[in-house]
């Protein structure tokens, strides 16, 4: 399996605070990879660095063999990496349909003129975008809500909408930031099935941050444990779970999620 994402020697400082320290890891293509660690260990910062929201103070990031360090977020997304957010970032006043359609925007070829004058090419593309968006909406069981304003949706639906929107950008790698946060056990089961489906059917590699140990153990094929911005352990989830350093990081700090 080729390395889809390759992070090398990445460090990031916020002023004097070291958030991420000398990170090196590879995500092979087609794998479901988990990134776990106590709160504040640098997981979301890592996501922000990979997606270009921050530029790492040191180190490089490669995606599909090409360097993406320091590129602007929208370019990285257009290049094939998508992400969801820990605190939902939905377009509240737009409909569910429109939320998804925004994610399809960058691949729309009709220019401004064509759109304003409603040329046939524009209408054709609008139809296509709409169909693709509805397909995703049906997949995510949001069909009944397709024309509702996103801000009126219940929490579980919103989480699925975020994932749907990320998938709409047609990524090769999707970064899920705590997708199971706030979900009950049944919803979590559905989510696990969904994540597997994302990888199996859509051939999207998944990198996820989670505190939900059950989800991590059942879904992830590889796992990396970090604390204070440094790697503590990496590899097969079952082996990592018994690693004494990992236990100390979690239990020794009265940690979360075990």
């Amino acid at each position: 399996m080729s390395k889809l994402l390759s992070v090398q020697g990445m460090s990031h400082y916020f002023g004097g605070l070291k958030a991420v320290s000398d990170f090196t890891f590879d995500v092979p293509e087609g794998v479901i990879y988990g990134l776990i660690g106590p709160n504040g260990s640098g997981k979301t910062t890592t996501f922000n660095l990979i997606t270009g929201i921050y530029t790492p103070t040191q180190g490089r990031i490669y995606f599909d063999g090409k360097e993406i360090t320091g590129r602007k977020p929208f370019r990285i997304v257009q290049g094939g990496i998508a992400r969801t957010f820990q605190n939902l970032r939905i377009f509240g006043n737009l409909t569910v349909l429109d939320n998804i359609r925004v994610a399809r925007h960058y691949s729309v070829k009709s220019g401004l003129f064509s759109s304003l004058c409603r040329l046939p090419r524009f209408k054709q593309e609008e139809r296509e975008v709409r169909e693709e968006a509805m397909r995703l909406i049906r997949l995510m069981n949001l069909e009944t809500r397709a024309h509702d304003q996103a801000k009126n949706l219940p929490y579980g639906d919103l989480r699925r909408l975020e994932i749907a929107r990320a998938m709409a950008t047609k990524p090769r790698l999707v970064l899920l930031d705590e997708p199971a946060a706030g979900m009950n056990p049944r919803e979590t089961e559905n989510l696990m099935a969904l994540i597997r489906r994302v990888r199996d059917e859509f051939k999207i590699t998944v990198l996820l941050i989670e505190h939900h140990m059950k989800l991590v153990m059942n879904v992830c094929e590889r796992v990396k444990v970090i604390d204070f911005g440094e790697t503590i352990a990496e590899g097969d989830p079952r082996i990592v779970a018994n690693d004494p350093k990992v236990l100390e990081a979690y239990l020794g700090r009265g940690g979360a999620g075990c």
Partner: protein
Amino acid sequence: MDKFNLPRLLITTVAFWLIVTLLSLDSVNILNGYVLVVIERCLIFVILASSLNLVNGIIGQFSMGHMGFAAVGAYVSGTITTLWLKLPPPDPGVWISFPILIFMGAIIVGGVFAAGVGLLIGFPSLRLKGDYLAIVTLGFGEIIRTILNNIDYVGGPRGLLGIPKFSSFTIICLFALLVIVLLRNLVHCSHGRAMLSIRENELASELCGVDTTRYKVMGFVIGAFCAGIGGGLLAHLLTLAHPTQFGFMPSALVLIMVYAGGMGSITGSIVAAFTLTILSEGLRSAIDYIPVFKIGAMTIRIGTEWVMVVYAVLLILIMLYRTEGIMGMREAKLLIIEDKQ
């Protein structure tokens, strides 16, 4: 499938145009010349308010120097037409002899210049966050006004005078319709959705692959273009262009229209533009009939400044009690392109 409402919008506009034109014919004279001018000013403010709504309401930025772009449009188009007037009379039938062509051309050129200024200003400024952007755009509006005040070629502090009165009701209607259709088409296409997403959550928008900087500048430039057109039309209605018409206070007035009507609602801007313009005119006329109060030794005369005091209070009240304005973010059926299957 998208139901295309353009025919309905066109019919409504033509009906409106027909009614007003017929009622203001000399033989009928139900609407006199003064009322016609008021309606024309309303339509121009529709153009100004809805173009500002694009920047403030749809993309979610905060531009406060909108009238600066109108000023550019007014002065550029005014200069073209006043120069044309000074040319020796050309042969009849040659394109250059038709005032209407010159006028339309001048207006468009004015819009293009305004768009250019918008690009110049927008590009560096739109990186800034809300509050700072407000101040910078305000500053640029003032700079434009100050520059115009100091260029003697276009009249300096006396203003650009002698602009021919080319703005007819028909032409103003036409441009207003064009701007509304333009904005409506823009909002209901992929590019428009990209802009809306920037307003909703800029970071998420960027993470959906939207080049947010490009779209913020694009919206800003389109807004400036339309404002330039509005300014040109205004100058050719009032037959003059003066720096004070385009300072902070007129910008604030257009801002009030956008907020009162509802951010992001083109219908709202239309309604508010009409309402507030008619209100100002009404108050201005009514002033002559209001008696003068005497309190002690002071005489309180209700002057035109009191109109602005009322507007200021109105703005505060809107913010306190109904931030969404009249329409909220909704649009009238006429302006929506049906989306449901």
